[in-house]
């Protein structure tokens, strides 16, 4: 009996690659939109445009993290190895997006506020996500048996998902007590229409990229598993 993993692996990779190509094209369009057709913020100047990459990357990291959590819950319930593979892929993609967010932060902060890092709520939150992703991968890398690895990662995924609201809450409360210069905003409601439009477009494009990377990564890993040989990740 050939495995359930077999049938769509190639197809999934292809679909994923299509999404990536679409996403990258969209990204080019968004850059053009951001640089040419969106007004420059008066106070911050050109570096502010990193915002259109920075915020969607954070959104994608969180989305990926939620996918890991949901896949983890489903795995413990259904014990389907494909869910474990999906969670593994989502964690890897999420890690990449969180790194993008964490590097664009300083790139934005330094020219505008002359500081490489601030502990604003969003950056701190994404930093924690980053560490959770790293921990998740490290644990997976340290366990050989695939069933055990799937089980343990699922528990980490679920605990991490539940942790996230607590981190958000305590960091937010902490920050309201120790207000810092309003950095790495503007918050959405006060955005003028052109900026909001660019942000939302970028958000959409990034989500497409997320799905593309996720599917491609999942498909490739599924193929590798079938080729025999279990790639410990």
């Amino acid at each position, binding site marked *: 009996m050939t495995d359930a993993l077999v049938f769509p692996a190639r197809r999934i990779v292809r679909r994923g690659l299509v999404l990536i190509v679409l996403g990258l094209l969209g990204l080019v369009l968004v850059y053009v939109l951001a640089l040419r057709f969106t007004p420059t913020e008066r106070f911050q100047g050109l570096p502010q445009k990193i915002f259109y990459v920075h915020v969607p990357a954070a959104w994608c990291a969180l989305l990926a993290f939620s996918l890991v959590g949901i896949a983890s819950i489903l795995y*413990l319930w259904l014990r389907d190895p494909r869910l474990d593979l999906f969670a593994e892929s989502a964690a890897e993609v999420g890690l990449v997006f969180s790194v993008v967010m964490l590097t664009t932060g300083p790139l934005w902060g330094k020219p505008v506020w002359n500081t490489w890092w601030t502990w604003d709520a969003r950056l701190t939150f994404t930093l924690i996500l980053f*560490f959770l992703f790293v921990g998740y991968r490290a644990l997976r890398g340290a366990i050989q048996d695939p069933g*055990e690895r799937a*089980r343990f990662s699922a528990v980490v995924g679920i*605990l*991490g998902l*539940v942790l996230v609201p607590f981190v958000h809450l305590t960091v937010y409360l902490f920050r309201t*007590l120790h207000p810092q210069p309003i950095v790495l905003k503007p918050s959405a409601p006060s955005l003028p229409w052109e900026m909001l439009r660019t942000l939302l477009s970028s958000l959409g494009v990034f989500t497409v990229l997320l799905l593309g990377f996720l599917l491609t990564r999942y498909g490739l890993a599924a193929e590798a598993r079938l080729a025999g040989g279990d790639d410990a990740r």
Partner: protein
Amino acid sequence: MAEFLRVALAVAGKDVRVELRSKTALVSAIAFAALVLVIFNFARDAAAVSREMLAPSVLWITFSFSGVIALNRSFSLERENAALDGLLLAPVSRSALFLGKYLANLAFVFSVETVALPLFVLFFGVDLSGSLGGIILTAILATTGFVAVGTVFAAMTARTRFAELMLPLLVLPFLLPPVISAVQVTARLLAGRPLSEIAGWLRILGFYDLVFVTLCLLLFPPLMDE
């Protein structure tokens, strides 16, 4: 229910007895806590930062880090002779096994904290009169939460090669909410602030405990289910 508790207490008792025989983990954790306190004393610019300002953070970093150290032994002793198989073979609920491990770990971490707190008062010259009760309550609330998560992670990392490194790596993000809350409460207690300012943070601690202890009790059986 009575059966559940009986099993948990038997496991906890066994863990405590094993540790009291060798004492290595307990002594190491206490020594670690003392050393951390010493380092903190020297690792600050005395002219720029007063002891009082730093005190809450120092206390909580000491408590949480030495707590994590103490947790490592929890499942490594079960791995030694595959004793864990013996536990899993018994016709007992796996959640009861977890509860037993958790209670024993609580006992250890509380023991470390009981030694670390007076040392902290000694080294940092902090006046705890009036705030001692509150600090003890905070310690109980915060420890209850992170030891639950730490016990689950200890079960997972015991089988890995770099367990002593993996456990802190996984647990530390989970320490963030309790430590942030505990530091806020401690700072306010030491400054003599009214209860109304503290209540919110204590509620967060309590809620964190409730959620994570329950979650860990529920997740332990599927974790052990090969």
